[in-house]
């Protein structure tokens, strides 16, 4: 929308904060609520300074009452406010499912278009350092399943800011899925407000051997995998869907039609999830005549274990992604990248406590 202007290299966490801050500057009906957003840690820095700037009426913590607080945010949204409701972990959204699924997603339709719910829900996925079963889930598929919800997943600082501003302007409930490990990653981000459009995927790397669709931080892991594969002479096309719902399927379809191969790398479980959706749409597509080689990789079909020896095996990583893509392209299993080259700097930035 607006033209990017002065660019600075800033962190994802700061981009999130700046996006919210500018949205609040621009529109006084925007406010932010959520457990711990006004303390000195400020949701790992993503809300720091906002209460000082906007005051406790527009930036406030809540009781530990996720269910009702979601209803409160919905009600305020119906009455003309534009709440941003922050949750430090996506797992806690399970407490808000009733309000999100049965009220927020449905109100516009159920009330015949007479009611709008311009609600933004910010929520973070945790990973590593023993986050374990209840602080690590990527549950975007559940929300994308429900008509009326929108789900976006910024993989970088630029999108973090632009999607935040767009989410606030959107007249529907929008869930922003953030990733804890991305908070420290940097990108060039315009100073002034701008939006990132929903339903527009981004092709981060072009190639003709295989299409890799990565979600959230899996974009980074997929990009590294693509680098490793490039050394093997295999050129991957890496697509960041940016928004999970709405989904820019056209971009994926066009790419897959070129490469003939599709690997979806999800930041969640596979079964009945986003990765299945992408494969299904390709399978259904009337524009794709050839048989496409398709695979998915994501969280192991287990609860997330805390111990590092198992946690490492739970997540996709550049090695497992690259090896799977290699096999899809070559039909062979005769290559393994060395482990050091698979390390990603952004992963080691995070250390406990949360």
């Amino acid at each position: 929308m607006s033209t990017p202007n002065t660019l600075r290299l800033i962190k994802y966490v700061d981009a999130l904060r700046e996006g919210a801050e500018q949205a609040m500057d621009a529109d006084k009906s925007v406010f932010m609520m959520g457990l711990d957003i006004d303390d000195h840690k400020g949701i790992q820095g993503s809300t720091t300074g906002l209460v000082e700037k906007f005051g406790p009426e527009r930036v406030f913590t809540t009781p530990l009452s996720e269910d009702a607080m979601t209803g409160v945010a919905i009600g305020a949204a119906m009455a003309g406010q534009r709440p941003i409701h922050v949750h430090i972990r996506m797992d806690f959204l399970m407490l808000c499912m009733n309000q999100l699924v049965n009220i927020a997603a449905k109100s516009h339709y159920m009330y015949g278009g007479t009611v709008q719910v311009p609600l933004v829900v910010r929520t973070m996925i945790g990973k590593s350092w023993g986050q374990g079963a209840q602080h690590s889930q990527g549950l975007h598929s559940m929300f994308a399943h429900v008509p009326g919800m929108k789900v976006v997943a910024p993989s970088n600082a630029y999108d973090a800011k632009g999607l935040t501003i767009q989410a606030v302007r959107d007249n529907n409930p929008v869930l922003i899925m953030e990733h804890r490990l991305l908070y420290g990653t940097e990108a060039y981000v315009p100073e002034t407000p701008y939006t990132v459009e929903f339903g527009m995927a981004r092709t981060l790397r072009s190639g003709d051997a295989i299409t890799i669709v990565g979600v959230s931080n899996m974009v980074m892991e997929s990009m590294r995998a693509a680098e490793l594969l490039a050394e093997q002479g295999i050129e991957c096309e890496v697509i960041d869907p940016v928004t999970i719902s709405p989904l820019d399927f056209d971009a994926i379809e066009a790419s897959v039609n070129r490469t003939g191969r599709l690997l979806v790398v999800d930041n969640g479980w596979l079964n009945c999830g986003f990765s299945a959706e992408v494969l299904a749409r390709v399978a259904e597509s009337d524009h794709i005549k050839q048989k496409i080689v398709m695979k998915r990789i994501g969280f192991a079909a287990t609860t997330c274990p805390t111990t590092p020896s198992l946690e490492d095996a739970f997540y996709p990583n550049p090695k497992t992604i690259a090896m799977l893509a290699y096999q899809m392209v070559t039909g062979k299993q005769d290559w393994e990248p060395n482990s050091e080259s698979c390390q990603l700097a952004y992963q080691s930035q995070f250390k406990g406590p949360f």
Partner: protein
Amino acid sequence: MSSSIIERLYASIALTRRVEEWIADIYKSDSIKSPVHLAIGQEYIAAAVIDHLKQSDYVCGTYRGHGVYLSKGGDLNSMMAELYGKETGCAKGRAGSMHLVEASKGVIGMSAVVGTGIPVAVGHALAIKQQRRNDVVVVFMGDGATEEGCFSESINFAALHKLPILFVVENNRLAIHEPLHKRWAADTLTERMATYGIPSKRFLEPDVLAIHQHSGTLIEAIRNGSGPAFIECNTHRWYEHVGPHEDYDQGYRSLEEGDSWRAQDVYLTLGEQLDSDVKARIDENIELRIQAAVEFAEQSPFPAPEELFNYVYA
């Protein structure tokens, strides 16, 4: 008690009563293809409280919400059309009886998931406060709804932030067919609410004028920044939980209990206090409105199937 108050309350109660009696009748013809939860016998509570509200104030009812909708000035034609599933309904036929709404009259959309309207109503009160408006919210709920965790969460938050909202429990001592003693550890809801530091009062009898007066005082205070308040009104549901029939023959409650409430029917007792010609005028007017609404609903078109995908996103 001024006679104009009695007149207003009677008109409001009579409208709901008669509309719901019509609905019960029509229902047997299958024209209304949606579940209906009648509040017959309980109408006086919404009527009494809502009498103090202005158009920009909000109310939130439940799936048993015809009375709340009508008392707040919701349009009868579009309510009836909604029950018929017609395009001219208050939710364009997408909602049915359980999800009445009329934003322009401050009628918050109602929900069929018990308790969910409570925090949504509190959210409206938060918006009022943030927008520095002079309005208030009244949220009605059943006794069952207070068992949902979000009720306690909502009360705490509203009291913490001193939000302009009145919580009204219509305690008919039933959730569907389950009596209170199978659901509540103690019949002390009002005392419990008082521990949040909010004015809390219980009405054991259908004393419509006492409820009217007390809620007026509370709403006035709330409008002036006192923060939330709470009232609990014991009452009685005359009909089955859902549907157009009485069901005392089902054995889960006694007809005697029903009779004792019927003997205090506010609709009748208020009506008796009116001049007979005043009452006749009100009654006649109501019948005409209902007839017109039914006609309107019957003659309105159904939404066209092509419109299925309208309103998924705003």
